[in-house]
């Protein structure tokens, strides 16, 4: 599945797997699990551990 949406707990920034984040080198369709572990939220700088999966 690559159509999930994840939210940053502290700041609310959203990562959409369909869109990816090309400006950060993350192509469209990239699963959240496949993003490098040292990646940081572009808005607030926290790590992947502080993101959570949004319900459908």
């Amino acid at each position: 599945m690559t159509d999930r949406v994840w939210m940053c707990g502290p700041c609310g920034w959203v990562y959409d797997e369909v869109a990816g984040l090309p400006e950060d080198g993350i192509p469209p369709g990239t699963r959240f699990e496949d993003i490098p572990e040292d990646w940081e939220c572009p808005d607030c700088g926290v790590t992947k551990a502080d993101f959570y999966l949004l319900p459908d």
Partner: protein
Amino acid sequence: MASNIQPRETYDTLIEAVTTLVKSDLQPIVGEIDQQGRYPEDFLRKLGSIGGYAAALPADLGGLELGLAAQVDVITTVGGACGSTAFLVWCQSACVRYLLASDNTAVRARFLDAVSRGDLLAGTGMSNAVKHLAGIENIHIKARREGDGYVVTGALPWVSNLGEDHIAVVAASVEDGGYVMFAVQCNAEGVTLRPCPEFAALEGTQTLNLRLKDVQIPANAVLAHPHQFKDYIARIKPAFVLAQLGIGFGIMDGSLQTIRESNVTTAHVNQFLDDQEDELQRSVTALKSHACRLAELADADKATALEVLRLRLATSELTLRAANAAVLHAGAKGFLMRHPAQRRLREAVFVAIVTPALKHLRKEIHALEQAQASTQTPETHPQQVSPARKTRDPQEQAA
């Protein structure tokens, strides 16, 4: 200096000076602060020069020795004009309190005088740690020991009152256990300040995203080492929370003023609204009186956490009610962005979401009530404690 202080006279002089400064230097730029995000740096520095952050500081450290209640009153006076700036005054005075409470004389010697005078502006990035300690979120800053200091890495989404030549006070978890609290200079190597997405209010607070990458924290920047941290947090938390009441009180005072002004022409219809000026005023007065009593207890390290948190909760709730009532009394013109009632409404929401937020307060109060109930026998406490309820009647709460 200490022997010459006349507390009552000094208090009156201080509040009069703050009131005068608010009228001359803050009131004229309140709209600019709210709608253009102007940071009122000149006002903040002038406030420091007249003792606006030193009300609770002992005289032998250059303070006015008037106690925490006087510091709350300073914040209230500022908040009567601008809730955003009242929050900045809280940030600065909270950092004074952190420094004063530290057992580390080196960090006090390094920063206390400059912060208490407003020469060095200071942000408090303790929200994450306070929420972490309440079991609400992960801690975002990690530290490892190096020599007699630490190296820290992590990010805090939003820290207010920051700037390149400011300091920020932050806490981190230490890799070999416990927590460390420290001051970091914002222009230190490895520190990055970034802009945040636009906020609904308080844009004039220089609230920035703080990122730390392998930042060296020397021993003379440490407020509490892991072995000191638990007692240190217990000492600073009551004042941290109580001083915030001034932000709410100021917003309530401003909201009541809007209600009185609206009633000049529309009292005949405003009388049908749920919250009326006289009842709100009585509730605000009761909360202020309670705050004064608790602040005196906090000065003596005798304020109980439960009572402090309940009062902070009651203040959040009444601030929301008062600001909402101000908009309803103002009517359609209160829906204009330029109208103070609109600004007060957004400022009031801030009081309810800033750490400790309203939901956080109810969680902590519930936990403390549960703990208290478990230590009492059925004879002395026959009823099960329910989750922290909405404190609808602040006078009852304040009694």
